[in-house]
């Protein structure tokens, strides 16, 4: 939970393709968020151990390493239920049952405006009173 409401929420961007990761950072920062980055699910977990201000997980699905983006999202949903999850995928029609509850999916390649809008919707939920237990 963000203690200081004036401080923008932090987004952890998990994407193995460096160029796409770079662009995602630009988009997310332009939307007014702080960012952390990781090139794999394993690296993302290390970042999450290190810092505790991550409010949103922004992850790709298909990545090398011991787990893919969906597994990472499920893990985060269990261990950090307050973290909002945004999944980007190049696969059309991602199986909804494989998604953690409340996860939002964005098709790749994504348009900047679309990502910004989704992030703002999620940020609005973060500001609202907590409705989950």
């Amino acid at each position, binding site marked *: 939970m963000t203690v200081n409401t004036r401080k923008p929420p932090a987004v952890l961007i998990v994407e193995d*393709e*460096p*160029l796409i*990761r*770079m*662009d995602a950072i*630009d988009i997310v920062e332009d939307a007014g968020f702080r960012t952390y980055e990781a090139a794999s699910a394993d690296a993302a977990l290390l970042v999450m151990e290190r810092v505790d201000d991550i409010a949103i997980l922004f992850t790709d699905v298909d990545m090398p390493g011991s787990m893919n983006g969906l597994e990472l999202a499920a893990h985060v949903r269990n261990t950090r239920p307050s973290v909002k999850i945004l999944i980007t995928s*190049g696969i059309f029609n991602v199986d909804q049952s494989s998604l953690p509850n409340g996860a939002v999916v964005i098709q790749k*390649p994504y348009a900047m405006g679309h990502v910004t809008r989704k992030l703002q919707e999620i940020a609005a939920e973060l500001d609202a009173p907590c409705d989950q237990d």
Partner: protein
Amino acid sequence: MSTSSDHLDGGGDTSADVSTSVAVLAPKGRDASVAVQVFAKAGIPSQSVPNLQALADLIERQIGAILITEEALSGPGADAVAQAIASQPSWSDVPFIVLANGTIARRSDHAASKMDVLRNAVLLSRPLHAEELTRAIRSALTARCRQYTARDQMEELQLRERQLYESEAKFHAIANSVDQMIWSTLPDGFHDYYNDRWYAFTGVPPGSTDGAGWNGMFHPDDQERAWQRWDRSLKTGEPYEIEYRLRHRSGEYRWVLGRAQPVRDKDGTIMRWYGTCTDIHEIKMAEEQRQLMLGEMNHRVKNTLAMVNVMVSQTLRRADSLEDAQLSIQSRIGMMAQAHDQLINATWTETHIREVIDAALAPHRTGEKRFEIEGPDIPIGSKQALGLTMALHELSTNASKYGALSVQQGKVCVTWSVESHNDDNTFRFHWVERDGPTVAPPLRRGFGSRMIEQALAGYFNGRAELLYDPAGLSFDLTAPLTGLTLQ
């Protein structure tokens, strides 16, 4: 010679069917001519023969019956007759009617043995009695006729047996010469035949897969499915078709296409099932390979589109004018296309660094010795090759606009090396510009510099740095050697 076989035509006509006519040998007196006349009257074809040798010939030709006088049994040709009788086929027993020499009671052993040689002989006393003779000869001919019938039936059976044997031999030759495994079952599905291919493929002993033993030859994961499918066909009579893995004699499971059809009688009742197994392992593997390739292609195309998307949005975000952006986008897309060409020419997954660098710099070589390129030709992964191509494109384009390549005497040094320190192999790459205009750090950072410093380092899992030395721009990349082929 007449081919007529009119039996009424009788006496001395050699053209009559030998098998239904009577040969008469009575060289002395009038017995022969009397007998022939009696037979002619009774409508029995007959012919008079001059000696034992001629008689032997007729025996060999399966004469119907023989009338002979007892005294004619001795003399030249007797051996030939004995020989002809002995060599008769098993069904044949030529009937003789012997006209006795004197009274029957006083016959010597020698005379009796002469008659025994004939095997099937009836003795008639003389003088000839027409009716007695006619009845005796009719009876002989009737018995002879039954022999012929027996012969015909036997020959027919032998022919059928031979045909059956040939047909079966032909079936086995065909069934064992095809590439497929062939099997057959009773209507209830009991397997009772497999061709040689089945045993050659599976390596199991003949007969060991009879009944339901075949199911055990299938891959454990396919057994239940195959059994259900087969059971359904047996219950409904619909053709059986399934792909499954069959254990090869090598122990390896190979993909096989199994098919079977029922054969029905005229009432529609299933008599047997005939089936085949075709080895489709190679086709199946090629198909799987193709699916993998398609998946990989799909992934790469999407990835490429995503990168183009990033490149376009990044270029537009930082462009001075729309015109500038258009030129940059076109040239960057051209560079990406060229990088893909190169990967296609290589193995898709790996190429060599020298090739990548030469290709990336080719559009910027202006004839003179503007580039010094030196380094070991080491393998580089497809992602790293694409990243390096993009970086070199940005560096070259920048050098042509503002750096060493924008003036006549300017030069660019491209060098790389692998340094070993204990167990760590470090890859170092340098781009150094000389003799160009004085360099000043840019006022704002464009796509090129950000791509080089952030993205490129990511591809190699290393560090990248642009140095705006007033004497010339330089770029350093340091990465673990393993970063060059990171997937």
